C-alpha cells in the first residue's frame, strides 16, 4: 500500500542550525502517527515543512505519490489538503469563533455563509462548542480556543491533519477536552500527524510513534513496543527523563 504522505531524506536548516538532517517518514491513509522527542529535535519544523510553511532544503515530500516539495510550486492547493493546528492556537482575534471557521472556506472555495452554515454549525455541535460560536477568542478558555482552531482546520475538509504540540500551552485541567476531540477525530479515520509530549495519549491511540533526535527519526515503531521496550539508548534515555 502506498503511503498517503511520505518524506525522503528531508533536510531543513536555519542558517547553520541543521534542524532536519534527513527525515524519512511514511504515513498511510487513516493512520495516526505521533512524533516525540526533546524540544529542538525537529518535530515542529518537520510539521511546518509538511504543510509547506517552511520550504525544505533537500529531499522530497510526496502527497499521494506527488512531489509537493518542488521549489516554486504554488503551496496553496497543498495547504488546503493538509490542515494544521498550532501550539498557540493562532485564532484571528478580531473575529468570532464562527467567523474564524468560515473565513477560509468562504474565500478559498467561494462559498457563501449560508451554504457553509449547516456544516460549520454541525462541527461546532460535534465538538461541544455550539454555544460558543458567537464568542471572540479572548472570551474563550485555552481549551475552547484550541478546539475552535481544530474546527477551523477541519472546515477545509483536509485529507491530513497536523497537530503541533496542541496541548502544550494549556493548563493541565484543559488538556483532556482537547485530547477528547482528537479521539473523536481518530474514530472518523482522519489521517493525523502529531508532535506531542502526551505519551499516554500516544500509547492509547497512535498507530506509530517516531522518536526524533538530532534531526532524524532515531527510532520508530508501534507505541507499545517503542514506549515500553525501546531498542536504542537515546530513546531509552529520553523516555526515562519524561515518564
Amino acid at each position, binding site marked *: 500500500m502506498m503511503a498517503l504522505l511520505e518524506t525522503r531524506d528531508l533536510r531543513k536548516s536555519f542558517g547553520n542550525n541543521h534542524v532536519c538532517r534527513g527525515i524519512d517518514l511514511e504515513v498511510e491513509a487513516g493512520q495516526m502517527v505521533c512524533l516525540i522527542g526533546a524540544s529542538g529535535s525537529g518535530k515542529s519544523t518537520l510539521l511546518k515543512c509538511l504543510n509547506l510553511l517552511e520550504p525544505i532544503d533537500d529531499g522530497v515530500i510526496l502527497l499521494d505519490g506527488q512531489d509537493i516539495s518542488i521549489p516554486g510550486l504554488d503551496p496553496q492547493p497543498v*495547504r488546503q489538503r493538509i490542515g494544521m493546528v498550532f501550539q498557540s492556537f493562532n485564532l484571528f482575534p478580531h473575529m468570532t469563533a464562527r467567523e474564524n471557521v468560515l473565513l477560509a472556506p468562504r474565500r478559498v472555495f467561494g462559498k457563501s455563509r449560508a451554504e457553509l452554515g449547516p456544516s460549520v454549525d454541525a462541527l461546532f455541535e460535534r465538538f461541544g462548542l455550539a454555544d460558543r460560536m458567537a464568542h471572540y477568542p479572548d472570551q474563550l478558555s485555552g481549551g475552547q480556543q484550541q478546539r475552535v482552531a481544530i474546527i477551523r482546520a477541519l472546515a477545509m475538509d483536509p485529507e491530513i491533519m497536523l497537530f503541533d504540540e496542541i496541548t502544550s500551552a494549556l493548563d493541565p485541567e484543559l488538556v483532556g477536552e482537547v485530547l477528547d476531540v482528537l479521539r473523536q477525530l481518530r474514530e472518523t479515520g482522519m489521517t493525523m500527524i502529531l508532535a506531542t509530549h502526551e505519551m499516554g495519549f500516544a500509547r492509547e491511540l497512535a498507530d506509530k510513534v517516531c522518536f526524533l533526535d538530532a534531526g532524524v527519526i532515531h527510532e520508530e515503531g508501534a507505541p507499545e513496543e517503542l514506549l515500553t521496550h525501546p531498542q536504542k539508548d537515546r530513546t531509552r534515555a529520553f523516555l526515562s527523563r519524561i515518564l
Partner: protein
Amino acid sequence: MITRRQAYEARIRRRATLVAGGSTLAVFLAIVLLVPFAPGWPAVKKSFFNADVFAETFPGLLNAFLLDVAIFAWSAPLIFLLGLLVALARDVRAPAAYPLKLFAILYTDIFRGVPVILVIYLVGFGIPGLGLPRPWNSPYIWGTVALVLTYAAYVAEVFRTGIEGIHQSQRAAAASLGLSGADTMRFVILPQAIRKVVPANMNLFIALQKDVALLSFIGPVEIFRQAGVYKSLLANFTPYVGAALIFLAITIPATRYADYLLSKQMKART
C-alpha cells in the same frame, strides 16, 4: 466595612489630593497676582485680552472655523486611503510590482522630509501657476492635495508599523488554511493592524486639524486668516487668542481621547 489597608490608602490619597490642590492654587495665584506687575501688562492686556474685541469677533471666528472643519473632513478620508495604499505598496513582494514599492518608499521619504508649509506653497502656488482653468486653479483643491500628500506619508508609516506588528503566527495560521496572500492581508492582517494604530493615527489627525490653518497662506479665509482680518480691522490681537481657544476646544478633548485609547490598549496587552 473597609479593611485597614483601604483606610490607610484612602488617608494617603486624601493627603495627596490636598497637597496637589494647594500647590496648584499657589502657582496659579502667583501668576495671576504677579503678571499684572510686569511693566507692559496694561498694553498686553488691551491688545490680547480685550473683552469687547473678543465678544465682537468670536462669532465670526467660529464661522470661519467651519471652513477648517470642512477642509479637515474631506482631507481625512483621502489621507486614510492614500496612507493605506502606500503602506500596502511598501509590503508588496512581487518583482513586477517593484517600481510601485520604490515609488512608495521615495514618496514617504520625501513628504516626511519637507515642512508642510513648503509643500503647501509649492503645490498651492505651483500647480495653479500652470494656467489651469477654473475651477481647477482653486486653492481649496491644491491646498487639500498638499495636506493629503504630506499627511498620507506619515499615516502610511503608521500603518506599516501596524502591519509589521501583527505576529507572524497569524500569517502562518492563514497560510495553513490555504488563504492567498491578498486575502490574508485583507481579512487577517489589516483589520488587526488598523485597530492597533488607531491612537497613533488619531494623534496625526489632531496635528492635521491644526495644520489646516496653514492653508490660509495660499488663500482660503479660514479661522487664522479671519483672525488676521479682524486684527487689521480693529488693530487688536485678541482675535488670535480667540482662534487659539477654538482650536484648543477641539484638540484637547481629542488628545485626551487618543491617550485614553492608547492606555486602554496598553492595559489589554499586559
